[in-house]
């Protein structure tokens, strides 16, 4: 019997959905094994059909994107109720992802920036979307834009995580095959990724590390054979789960951490901070400061994808 599946996107760019399509001919396999009941970006988008299902009717729900607004959360809760297995697909559902960087700001700061202050906006009246508006036909409403971006598992229980921004298409396929092959690992597992940090699959030569200056990728022509970190380029590979095939590294860009932390690491960003600070060269306070001055925006760099999934989750107001 074919599996019944729903696919949904919350606060996401759609890259995860594209990654599913990027499984190319394997998509035929997926179609052969699964009936897709909901997939707003590609097929069907009628929430009401889902609401009518019996609880647990779907075998799996695949949710990409962070929880940014009340609609994201509502559908997450809905799909959770209707599915036997909930899968967080991609960095946003898994960790909060790029939208999670908004947790350094408040909802009001965000709305002001987007609708009023942004360089490409002319909004002299200072109009900001309202959540509800009365027209003669009745009340119209928009989902609430949240103050804090959340990961999927902060609003519903999640069985499995497929990490990545976006996840590697083939790994999506193999993760899905775990469902129809009935070979799913213990609940809570990250599937379709490795158990070690990215350095394991990084082709660059790694030596002992001592950093005396940080640089950014546009400032140097890095040695293509040598570990980025050893060249003073902030690379999160050492703290990031492998599985992506080192695709950024192979394209000459340091790892930015989209596959998230390893098991038992509660805070990827802070752990990376500890690792990087540990291998600084200087001992004197002044010299340490000089080196640290060369790291641009350290916290957002270390937490590029994982702020909502970190210990503190957001900036304190």
């Amino acid at each position, binding site marked *: 019997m074919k599996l019944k599946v729903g696919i949904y996107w919350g606060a996401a760019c759609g890259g995860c959905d594209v990654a599913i399509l990027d499984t190319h001919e394997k998509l035929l396999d997926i179609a052969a094994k699964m009936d897709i009941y909901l997939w707003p970006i590609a097929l069907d988008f009628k929430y009401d059909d889902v*609401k009518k299902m019996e609880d647990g009717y779907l075998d799996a729900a695949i949710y990409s994107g962070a*929880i940014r607004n*009340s*609609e994201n*959360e*509502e*559908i997450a*809760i*809905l799909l*959770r*109720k209707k599915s036997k297995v909930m899968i967080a697909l991609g960095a946003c559902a898994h960790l909060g992802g790029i939208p999670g960087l908004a947790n*350094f700001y*408040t*909802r009001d700061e965000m709305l002001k920036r987007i609708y009023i202050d942004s360089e490409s906006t002319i909004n002299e009246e200072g109009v900001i979307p309202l*959540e509800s508006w009365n027209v003669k036909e009745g009340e119209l*409403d928009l*989902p*609430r834009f*949240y*103050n*804090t971006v*959340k990961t999927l*598992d*902060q*609003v*519903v229980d999640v069985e499995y995580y497929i990490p990545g921004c976006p996840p590697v298409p083939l790994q999506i396929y193999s993760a899905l095959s775990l469902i129809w092959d009935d070979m799913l690992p213990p609940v809570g597992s990250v599937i379709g990724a490795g158990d070690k940090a990215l350095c394991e699959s990084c082709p660059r030569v790694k030596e002992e590390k001592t950093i005396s200056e940080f640089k950014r990728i546009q400032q140097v022509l890095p040695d293509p054979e040598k570990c980025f970190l050893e060249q003073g380029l902030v690379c999160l590979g050492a703290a990031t789960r492998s599985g992506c095939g080192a695709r950024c590294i192979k394209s000459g860009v340091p790892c930015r951490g989209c596959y998230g932390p390893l098991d038992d690491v*509660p*805070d990827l960003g*802070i*752990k990376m*901070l*500890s690792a*990087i*600070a*540990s291998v*600084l060269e200087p*001992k004197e*306070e002044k010299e*340490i*400061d000089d080196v*640290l001055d060369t*790291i641009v925006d*350290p*916290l*957002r760099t270390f937490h590029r994808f994982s702020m909502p999934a*970190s*210990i*503190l*989750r*957001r*900036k*304190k*107001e």
Partner: protein
Amino acid sequence: MEFEPKLVGFLCNWCSYTGADLAGTARISYAPNLRAIRVMCSGRIDPTFIIKALYEGADGVLIAGCHPGDCHYQEGNYKALRRYKLLKRILPEYGVEPERVHLEWVAASEGEKFAKVVNEFTDKIKKLGPLNMKQSIFDSMKEDIVVHESAGEEKGGEADEA
């Protein structure tokens, strides 16, 4: 009632914890706000511990290790210093005053200094007021709830203690 801050201290076994013991042996009284966790070396202090302590309700965190050059493990304190310096830089990004995390070198012989450090740190945090990190994070999510027709029970806005 006056605000009594709750402070967590990470003390290295050989210098600072011993220094704190000496304050005890010498009966030097100091503010009762600091609760100490003993680690073998200040080099063991993972910044994650500090973030965790702030999240769990500490109003301030004190790191204390051997003076530079005196580390029982030679250089652990330098590693602690580097991590501390980087951590201090990012605390404002979390909306946390960097003064809430403080590093001090306290030798095994410096019982009096330990007492002084604790008193001064306590005073400093008293002036800064309570941090209430966890509560404030969840307070700022209070409005983040499903306002639309719900498909089930609400989970938003609740502390996720998993």
